């Protein structure tokens, strides 16, 4: 916090503690039209970002309710809350909604949309109408999915494995697959828009070596969105044809191969994990540099490691199939490549640590969330290395160990970074500061709640509790109760920001252009930004993260 006291509300309104508008707010994108139509038909990337924030929050709570049902059912060893069928449907709903309607769009479509043009000095994304279309596709597919999953139900899990999904499952597999197929176009269009924007709309002086690391990570993510999503689309078409007409390509009776489904599915779905975590890595790079008030250590390596993760991510899908009966040699290669992902991931974590060394750190909420991210990411990443080893994977495959691992990376990582981004750029988005004390409290609650929920699941998995069962031996109950208790703490952490962030919109201090004293073009424009982002097209003449280094005399 350096300068949030500088700009006061409009002097004429000084006595009016709420509702007072600053001059900046009057000309901001938020006040450029008040009708519902001005929001629903907007092509302003900042408004579309806000539409995404609202809609992903909605779908997050749908998915969270399913998670709550799962955790409540698991309080006791007997399956007494849900029927077997109901439990299967609950975890399918949870997985489908959380993966495709929360995690995939979470950071790219909200903060990516809001920040990329601001960070590179552009007026908007390259294709503003396509951006709006992408939101409509997303919302329609999402509502359709929720309707299908609640009205008819699907019990295949989010993975739609054959032959369960094509021959045995009851429920609306085809409709659910169609909804995921449709939302894929939203991903593709968003990724396409980001790639073209980063290539073609950078302001004068914004060279590739000066791009903020968040932009690098969204760029890497977009490549995956564009190239991996269509493979999922065609795979979903194939299982729908299989189920409807008996296509046979996944059916051994006709000469097809069920493993082919898993290959195609994970060819998308493993890179999809990097769609979720790469933007989070980009956010944390921004938060760490701003938190330490130092240039990021090894900028080129942090940027390059995003591209490396995206590229390697296309060649590791087979590690989901170590026990599926694929060739041992293939498994060995996939195991090696999966372990290799640790190199770019490690580069990031070490470089963040080096950035923090002798930094001027203040424990603001964004920084705490960044630290929570690093903790969860290291934990999830190291257990990922364990799972990439063939021998260990055979032991813990399809157990809660895997569940805990991917929740640490996908959920812990993505949500801590999402919250970090929300707390960091909130003053830019609405122009007001929120209560930092409450923000810090949320970060602590989140970190504790998350670990309390998912750490016991590592133990459960290692002891042999399989995933997707709601009846379990009584000796697992203690750990399951701890996990459910942790989920309650986590739930509180999810709800708290609603209160103080909403409060800040009316009663917060005006933030000023740059409340954190951070570098980056987005902090040079007013908060909230005007409709066209910048009064004049900015010109960049310095490297990124150009903080004044205030280290001790012994070190420079």
């Amino acid at each position: 916090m350096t300068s949030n006291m500088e700009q006061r509300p409009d002097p004429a309104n000084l006595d009016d503690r709420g509702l007072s508008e600053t001059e900046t707010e009057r000309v901001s994108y938020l006040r450029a039209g008040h009708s519902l139509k001005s929001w629903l038909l907007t092509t302003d990337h900042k408004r579309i970002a806000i539409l995404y924030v609202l809609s992903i929050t909605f779908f997050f709570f749908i998915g969270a309710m399913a998670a709550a049902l799962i955790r409540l059912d698991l309080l006791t060893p007997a399956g007494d809350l849900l029927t077997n069928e109901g439990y299967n449907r609950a975890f399918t709903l949870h997985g489908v909604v959380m993966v495709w309607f929360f995690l995939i769009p979470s950071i790219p479509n909200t903060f990516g949309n809001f920040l990329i043009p601001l960070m590179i000095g552009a007026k908007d994304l390259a294709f503003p109408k396509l951006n709006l279309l992408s939101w409509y596709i997303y919302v329609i597919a999402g509502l359709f999915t929720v309707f299908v999953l609640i009205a008819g139900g699907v019990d295949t899990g989010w993975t739609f494995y054959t032959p369960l999904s094509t021959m045995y499952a009851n429920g609306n597999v085809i409709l659910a697959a169609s909804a995921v197929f449709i939302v894929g176009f939203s991903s593709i269009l968003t990724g396409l828009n980001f790639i073209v924007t980063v290539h073609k709309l950078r302001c004068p002086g914004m060279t590739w070596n000066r791009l903020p690391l968040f932009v690098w990570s969204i760029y890497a993510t977009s490549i995956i969105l564009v190239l991996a999503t269509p493979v999922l689309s065609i795979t979903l078409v194939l299982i729908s044809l299989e189920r409807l007409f008996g296509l046979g390509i996944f059916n051994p009776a006709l000469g097809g191969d069920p493993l082919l489904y898993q290959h195609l599915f994970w060819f998308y779905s493993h890179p999809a994990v990097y769609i979720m975590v790469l933007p989070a890595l980009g956010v944390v790079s921004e938060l760490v540099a701003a938190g330490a008030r130092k240039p990021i250590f090894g900028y080129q390596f942090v940027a390059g490691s995003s591209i490396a993760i995206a590229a390697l991510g296309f060649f590791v899908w087979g590690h989901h199939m170590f026990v599926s009966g694929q060739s041992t040699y293939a498994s060995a290669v996939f195991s090696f490549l999966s372990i290799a992902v640790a190199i770019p991931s490690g580069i990031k974590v070490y470089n963040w640590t080096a950035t923090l060394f002798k930094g001027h750190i203040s424990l603001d909420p964004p920084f705490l969330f960044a630290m929570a991210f690093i903790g969860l990411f290291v934990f999830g990443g190291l257990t990922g290395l364990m799972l990439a080893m063939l021998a260990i994977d055979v032991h813990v495959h399809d157990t809660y160990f895997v569940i805990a691992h991917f929740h640490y990376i996908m959920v812990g990582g993505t949500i801590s970074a999402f919250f970090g981004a929300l707390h960091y750029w909130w003053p830019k988005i609405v122009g007001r500061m929120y209560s930092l004390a409450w923000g810090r409290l949320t970060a602590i609650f989140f970190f504790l709640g998350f670990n309390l929920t998912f750490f016991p699941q590592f133990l459960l998995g290692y002891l042999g509790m399989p995933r997707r069962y709601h009846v379990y031996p009584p000796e697992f109950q203690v750990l399951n109760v701890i996990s459910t208790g942790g989920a309650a703490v986590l739930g509180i952490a999810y709800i708290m920001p609603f209160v103080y962030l909403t409060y800040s919109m009316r009663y917060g201090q005006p933030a000023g252009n740059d409340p954190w004293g951070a570098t980056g073009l987005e902090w040079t424009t007013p908060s909230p930004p005007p409709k066209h982002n910048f009064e004049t097209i900015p010109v960049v003449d310095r490297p990124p993260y150009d903080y004044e280094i205030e280290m001790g005399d012994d070190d420079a």
Partner: protein
Amino acid sequence: MPETAPVTEPYRDPRQQHDAAMMGMYIFLSSEIMLFGGLFAAAAAMRLAHAAEVVQASQALHFGIGGLNTAVLLTSSLFVALAIEAGKGGKAATAAGWLAGAAVLGLCFLAIKTYEYHAEFAEGLLPVPGVQSRYATSIQHLFMNLYLAATALHALHLTIGIVLLLVLALQTARRAIPLPQRSIILITAGLYWHLVDVVWVFLYPVFYLAR
């Protein structure tokens, strides 16, 4: 790129807008390639697992009709290329003519394809309800299934392309698209059309010529 081209919102100059549109289309086409790539991967898996039966199944297809269709589509691509050249030269009427010609060739392709499906239907090879199927092996059944799925997906893309070209032909004829300033619209539509052709150029050997 003529300097008089109109520039819309996020762009600074026509050159930038032109480049962005080209790049956007190429990226979209790369995602289309990955979409069909899934089908080609499935076809490759089938071929590797059952080489002899796939060759046998391929021999039942009418490769002459497929070859004729290949020629029709490649000619249509030539027409689209000529339309774009005319558009860049500002000759709206000529451009509209070539576009309409390409769209008609696209319709010819669909007509020939329909005739071919009908012939396969009569031979009991088309895997649709109501056919007295006469498959020599279950692999032939799988092969025909995949053939129908792939060619139908291609036909769907082609239909979208035909509608696109007809709309553009009409708009060009009415001078609703300022040429040569906005010839980028024809260029990007043309790129899509060429991709649909190229997909066929790969589908044809994979299914018809695997004999």
